[in-house]
């Protein structure tokens, strides 16, 4: 058994669970439930392959302990025009610029703006992408892939396709998709959610499960944006109580009208204390 020497062999229970030949250590994914992990393996997996993808916005990176974590679902919530889309566009360009992987951007409100991305990339310091300006722009922008999605069924279709493509490509060892952005998920869910019929809610939960599965199995970082709706008194994130449990990290963004300083607040975080607040400027 190839893995025997490496202490990590304890990760597989002997007996009813057949140990696949040695290579499962390299493939780091727990495929098909053939192999249960213990805490040490998990820790190793987390420290080795669950990277923090920087958003390029210092305030947010500081709040999230480095950025958007792979394997996790991060939610941005905020009122209209608070800067959610800007954070999405910034993260996409930053992750692509650092060549951490490809970015898949699902756009529901025609707000994916290539010219904005070009401007953000142009503003990056030379040290970030050591290439001449025209080359790096093309390089960065070709690794951001965008698809418009206009209803929930489209979204299911796209996510299933993505899952299939990821499954087939994991073995090729190419530069893979590492960040999936959905801006905004609540625009798709709002028309079906609520009312007398439970169907909308169950579709919402299927989307949630699918996203988390993708995040976990293919080591994606998933970033979704959510609306704010008027609650009793203060505005609160949309989609209700059952969606609240879905994201690993929930971040609220607000911006005073006319200013370009955003305020981010951690509403929920799996590792770090919530309630912390940071201010950050939106890049011009």
């Amino acid at each position, binding site marked *: 058994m190839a893995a025997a020497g490496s202490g990590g062999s304890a990760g597989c229970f002997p007996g009813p669970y057949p140990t696949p030949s040695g290579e499962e250590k390299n493939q780091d994914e727990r495929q098909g439930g053939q192999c249960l992990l213990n805490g040490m393996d998990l820790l190793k997996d987390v420290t080795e392959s669950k990277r923090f993808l920087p958003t390029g916005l210092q305030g947010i990176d500081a709040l999230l302990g480095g950025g958007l974590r792979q394997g996790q679902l991060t939610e941005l919530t905020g009122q209209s*025009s608070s800067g959610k889309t800007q954070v999405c566009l910034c993260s996409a360009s930053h992750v692509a610029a650092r060549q951490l992987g490809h970015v898949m951007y699902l756009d529901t409100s025609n707000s994916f703006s290539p010219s904005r991305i070009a401007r953000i990339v142009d503003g990056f310091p030379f040290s970030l992408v050591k290439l001449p300006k025209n080359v790096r722009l093309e390089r960065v922008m070709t690794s951001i892939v*965008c*698809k418009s999605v*206009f209803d929930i069924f489209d979204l299911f279709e796209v996510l299933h*396709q993505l899952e299939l493509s990821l499954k087939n490509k994991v073995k090729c060892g190419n530069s893979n998709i590492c960040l999936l952005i959905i801006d905004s998920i*609540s625009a798709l869910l709002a028309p079906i959610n609520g009312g007398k019929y439970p169907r909308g809610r169950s579709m919402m939960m299927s989307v949630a499960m699918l996203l988390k599965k993708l995040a976990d199995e293919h080591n994606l970082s998933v970033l979704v944006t959510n609306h704010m709706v008027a609650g009793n008194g203060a505005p609160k994130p949309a989609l209700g109580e059952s969606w609240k449990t879905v994201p690993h990290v929930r971040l609220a963004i607000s911006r005073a009208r006319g200013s370009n300083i955003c305020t981010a607040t951690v509403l929920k975080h799996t590792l770090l204390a919530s309630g912390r607040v940071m201010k950050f400027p939106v890049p011009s």
Partner: protein
Amino acid sequence: MEIADLPISTSHRAKLLAAGYSSLAALSAASPTRLARDLSIEIQEAEDILKVAVGANKSKGVDGLSTSSVIKGAQNAWDMLSDEQSRKHINTGSADLNNILGGGIHCKEVTEIGGVPGIGKTQLGIQLAINVQIPVEYGGLGGKAVYIDTEGSFMAERVYQIAEGCISDILEYFPYCHDKALSGQERLKPESFLADIYYFRICSYTEQIAVINYLEKFLQEHKDVRIVIIDSVTFHFRQDFDDMALRTRVLSGLSLKLMKLAKAYNLAVVLLNQVTTKFTEGSFQLTLALGDSWSHSCTNRLILYWNGNERYAYLDKSPSLPVASAPYAVTVKGVRDTVSSNNSKRVRFLGMLSGANWAPIFEH
């Protein structure tokens, strides 16, 4: 690779498996007609499936994060950038306004324009319906307009006036070409501008929902429509809707449909909205109507307001442009720059009007 791993739609996959196609080998042996019959789908779809299957057989192990292979219909940002840069914008009539909008109203986006009664929402709507028709050789889009009127405020006489104003400005800027291009002259009549506005009069929210659903079919038959204006999106939904949660759902559904149309048919959607007062932080403030959820459902948001005696427009929301405001005026000719700055900016307005195409015309 198995059938289950083929990048085809879930329903097709289910049908394949149900019809007993369990392996790729079995699938590749089938002919399109047989497959179509077995799965009871169109032949075209069957051919598509076979194509995918053949492709999957070939591409095994071949590197590929080429964009289209990951998800059908996806585009990378680089291609989208060049597409975006080649796109023309719809002139609003005022250079200052065009400036803060990044050249005018953008196609493939939904723009919401709101403001107090009498500020000029409908005027701007009519102006856009006229300006979208400026022929390509005069730097316009040469498209047609769909005007969905819910309030009954579309005045044909006024439209005629604005069309005349638009034409006189074009002729003033292109003094040489109207005597040579007779065919162009033919089109530069207010009558033909009016004839190319498709007008729908809506009298209830049911009709509004219906017409938006019907638009898809209408636009398929009229591919040269470049702008859809709804004046206003609010009226009926403010009048006779009691269930607010239902209203939110219906409206967000409508907005997604309009987004889809804007993208699919490369047109601008302009939604006019009314204002309402909202109690925030101890005081009443004016905001656009239809509530917080609705405020998320447009790509751009432009708020018109009075600043003393001047009309101003404030770009409140845009994914690509900074927040900004600019003055504008409503004149006999339509929406124009404010009078005080008229002289210096007249040239700029016409410069924008001309776009990229004026140079060859001027050679004569």
